[in-house]
């Protein structure tokens, strides 16, 4: 599958996707780690992609989204943002709302 198709497929099949450096258990960048913490604090159910394991996707997603850095959080296929925006939305209480609307909060 073409890399763009793969990205679209991931975003279609998962309502919340975090493209990150490392994994939720072993994040390899402080910003990716903080983003996981915030999602966990919201009890979010999310899929993740470790971009270190997929160099082709790592480059392709940057141009797909016009966003040159990681992490990148997607909810319902839409780019929400990177670490700054994730934390900002969390402190305003908006992230939890967006996750709930996407039916991605654990009971």
């Amino acid at each position: 599958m073409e890399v763009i198709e793969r990205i679209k497929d991931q975003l279609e099949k998962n309502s919340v996707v975090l493209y990150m450096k490392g994994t939720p258990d072993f994040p390899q960048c402080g910003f990716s780690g903080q983003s996981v913490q915030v999602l966990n604090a919201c009890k979010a159910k999310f899929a993740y992609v470790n971009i270190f394991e997929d160099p082709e996707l790592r480059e392709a997603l940057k141009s797909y989204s016009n966003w040159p850095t990681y992490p990148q959080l997607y909810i319902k296929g839409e780019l929400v943002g990177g670490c700054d925006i994730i934390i900002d939305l969390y402190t305003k209480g908006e992230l939890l709302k967006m996750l709930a609307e996407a039916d991605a909060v654990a009971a």
Partner: protein
Amino acid sequence: MITELIKKVLTAELQPEQLEIIDNSAAHAGHAGAASGGGHYHVTIVADAFEGKSMVQRHQLIYKALGDMMKQQIHALGINAISPSEYTKEAINE
């Protein structure tokens, strides 16, 4: 200095009313991302271009302005992008 370069590019592209850039690279020296040479910076910027735009769109404007700098010189960029009307509101609340 990268800080000066960021300032120059953003001033030319976005004509900000306020612009502050902080170099946080020293705090990240030694970790994997810093090894490639890219620095960590934080930008606070007030510009008319952000009026009516979402946060993602504002960050995208900044990334677009910086272009290839995001691949080389800059490893991480914290962004606080504010429109002039929001800036006035914040000032009053304080």
